């Protein structure tokens, strides 16, 4: 069993100490951190007291820093650009998987749906290229997509092509205009609103437009059908605190000033 945690920490070094507690409390094996302002300080913080020691892995230019509780030689880079890193995770005695982490551009700067679709399509194509090269699609994609699970770029065949149920995703792929497109399963569909366990989303934002969702689920975990049997759906959690420390304000929205405007997402893979 391996435990993964993704978090956009909004360049807040104060979160370093929280990450140390999270890693120790939950027994995290892999930390993927977006908007990490200082990789060395975070490494020093998470390794300050706890065992095992984390290793900082080489993220090249990608804006996601990855720390592992196992030697970094087992997580090798297969592709990277500034928004996406795709790694081969091959631990001794465990099933090899593809671990991809992304931090896609904010809507504030890439406003059009066409732009977002183009970015999602590129992510999808690069992942497929790596899968073809490695000969399997045991892939998990995590990250701050800056899009909700229901947006076209996340759902469409040429985009991330993520389905809301395992039953649909298990079909493997879907043919559109004569070309097959592989599915992802997107379990974040099951984490919307206040009738599910945990917060209503991973990010809160409100404006003065006529349509406001308030809560967004930008931070997502997408799983390929070939890895579904290893994915522990009940383990997927949006964390709202650690010990006595809450990541939320009194109004129950993410505390952007003290912690981050995003909430961390944690899940297990039985590999």
């Amino acid at each position, binding site marked *: 069993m391996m435990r993964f945690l993704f978090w956009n920490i909004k*360049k807040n070094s104060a979160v370093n100490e929280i990450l140390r507690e999270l890693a120790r409390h939950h027994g995290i094996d892999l930390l993927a951190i977006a908007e990490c302002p*200082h990789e*060395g300080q975070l*490494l*020093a913080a998470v*390794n300050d007291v706890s065992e095992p*020691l984390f290793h900082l892995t080489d993220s090249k230019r990608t804006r996601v820093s990855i720390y592992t509780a196992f030697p970094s030689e087992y997580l090798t880079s297969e592709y990277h650009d500034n928004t996406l890193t795709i790694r081969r995770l091959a631990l001794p005695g465990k099933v090899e998987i593809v671990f991809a982490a992304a931090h896609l*551009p904010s809507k*504030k700067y890439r406003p059009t749906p066409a732009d977002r679709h183009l970015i999602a399509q590129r992510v999808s194509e690069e992942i497929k290229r790596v899968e073809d090269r490695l000969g399997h699609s045991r892939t998990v994609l995590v990250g701050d997509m800056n899009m909700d699970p229901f947006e076209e770029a996340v759902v469409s065949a040429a985009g991330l092509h993520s389905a809301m149920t395992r039953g649909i995703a298990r079909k493997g792929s879907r043919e559109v205009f004569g070309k097959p497109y592989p599915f992802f399963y997107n379990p974040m569909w099951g984490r919307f609103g206040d009738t599910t366990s945990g917060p209503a989303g991973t990010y809160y934002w409100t404006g003065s437009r006529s349509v406001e969702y308030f809560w967004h689920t930008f931070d997502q975990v997408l799983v390929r059908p070939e890895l579904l049997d290893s994915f522990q759906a009940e383990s997927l959690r949006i964390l709202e605190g650690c010990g006595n420390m809450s990541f939320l304000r009194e109004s129950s929205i993410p505390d952007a000033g003290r912690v981050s405007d995003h909430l961390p997402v944690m899940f297990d893979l039985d590999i």
Partner: protein
Amino acid sequence: MATAVEDLWPADIESPPDQLAPITILKQQAAMLGRRTRNLLEAVVRTEDEDPPVAPLGDTTVRLPLGDQPVRLRHTLFLVAPALNFYRYRLLEASHAAVSLYPVTIRAGWERHLPTVVEQMAGTPHTRSASNEAEFKEVLRDIFAHEETKRIIGSLLAQSGEQHSQILDPSF
């Protein structure tokens, strides 16, 4: 009818019971450094065939009688600073005959640059030698405790704690 293949190898094939290989010792020490620095500074060992010495006045490569088999193995211990864009510093090299564990020739990375061909043939004055495991460990202890090694490690550690990630792209 299938014929059983006879195993001609002796029953007692094993590594020398009382000697740790230089590469094993180097990897152990590499792991120790990570623990000591909480992985702010790590060390890795890379092994490669060592080019045989070249005769000074010609292009004839000196080889053992078996021809083109590598004569020696060279293990290089690199310091790696992950938070400094994975900067690598070659701390030391240890080489020995490919089919023997000892003697080992060791040279610290900070001692000098690559020796000239003539120095290589003659044996450079900065090269140390260890004829067994205990001597090899003693040489390593000496290099690790050297003021220059401590200065380099201290410098990399200090920078690892200060180096900020690249300026974040505002579009994220």
